C-alpha cells in the first residue's frame, strides 16, 4: 500500500472518503491539502454543523472532521445529530479548544478522537487512519 488513506479492495485502490467541517476557509483548505496528499478523498466540505449533518446524509463519508465553534449549529450538536442518522459514524473533533469539559462532552456525544489546533499534519493523518480502521 503506497498511500496511507488507500485500502485494497478487489484489486483496485479505493480512497477513504472524508467530510471536512470548519467555518474557516483556511482550515478547510489546510485539512483538504493534508488529506488528499495522504491518499484520502475529501468527499465534501461543510461550513457549519447544520451543513455537516445534511452532507453526512447525502455523502455517507467514511469519516468526518468536525470543528466545534461554528455559526448555525456547533460541532457537538452536529455530532449528536449525525450519530442519530448513523450510530457508527466516525467523527474526529478538530478544534482550538482543548479543555477537559469540551473533550468529555464531544466524546460522550460520540466523537472518536479529539485534535487540538494548531496541529501537525501527521496528527490528522494518524487520527483519520485510526478511525477508518
Amino acid at each position, binding site marked *: 500500500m503506497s498511500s496511507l488513506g488507500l485500502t485494497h479492495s478487489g484489486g483496485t485502490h479505493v480512497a477513504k472518503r472524508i467530510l471536512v467541517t470548519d467555518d474557516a476557509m*483556511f*482550515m478547510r483548505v489546510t485539512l483538504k491539502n493534508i488529506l488528499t496528499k495522504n491518499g484520502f478523498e475529501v468527499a465534501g466540505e461543510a461550513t457549519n454543523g447544520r451543513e455537516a449533518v445534511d452532507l453526512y446524509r447525502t455523502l455517507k463519508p467514511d469519516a468526518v472532521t468536525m470543528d466545534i465553534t461554528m455559526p448555525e449549529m456547533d460541532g457537538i450538536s452536529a455530532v449528536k445529530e449525525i450519530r442519530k442518522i448513523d450510530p457508527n459514524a466516525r467523527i474526529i473533533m478538530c478544534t482550538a479548544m*482543548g*479543555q*477537559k*469539559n469540551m473533550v468529555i462532552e464531544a466524546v460522550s456525544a460520540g466523537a472518536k478522537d479529539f485534535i*487540538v*489546533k*494548531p496541529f501537525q499534519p501527521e496528527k490528522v493523518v494518524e487520527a483519520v487512519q485510526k478511525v477508518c480502521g
Partner: protein
Amino acid sequence: MSMRVEYINPFLQASFSVLETVLGKTPTKGELGMRPNVFTSQQCNVITGVTGKIQGQVIYGMSLITADRIASMMIGQPIRTFDQLAASAIAELGNMITGNAMALLAEAGYVCDITPPTIVRGANVKISTLNIPALIIPVTLDQGLLELTVSLQEK
C-alpha cells in the same frame, strides 16, 4: 480598574505556544500597557469573544503588512492580495490563540466558551461600548508586531 492576572496569563501562554507552532519561531513579549476601554489603533484586527464565567473580548491587532506576512506563512506561499483565504488564516490564528487559552482558563477554574472570530480592517476603532479596561500585550514576531488587547471581566 484592574484585570486579574489569572485572566491574562492564559492568553500570554497560549499566544506564545500557538505562534511558535504556526510561525515556527518563539516571539518576544514587549511592555504591557493599559487602556480604559477596548480601542485598537491597528489596521487589521481579529476580534474574538469569550463567554461564560468570565466574558469580554480579546483582539489581535496588526498592520496590513504584518497580516500579509503571517497569512503567507500560514498558507505556505506568498499572497498577492489579502483575499478571503488570507483573511480566514488571520482569523483562525486569533481563534486558535483564544481557543487554546480556554483550556488554561478552565484549569484555573474559569470554564468559558468562545465565539467565532471576526476581522475588522481600519485603524482607530473603538470595539466595545463597555468600559471594561483593556490590557495591551505587544508581541514581536519576524512578521512584525502583533498587539493583543485583552478585555475580560467576571460575570
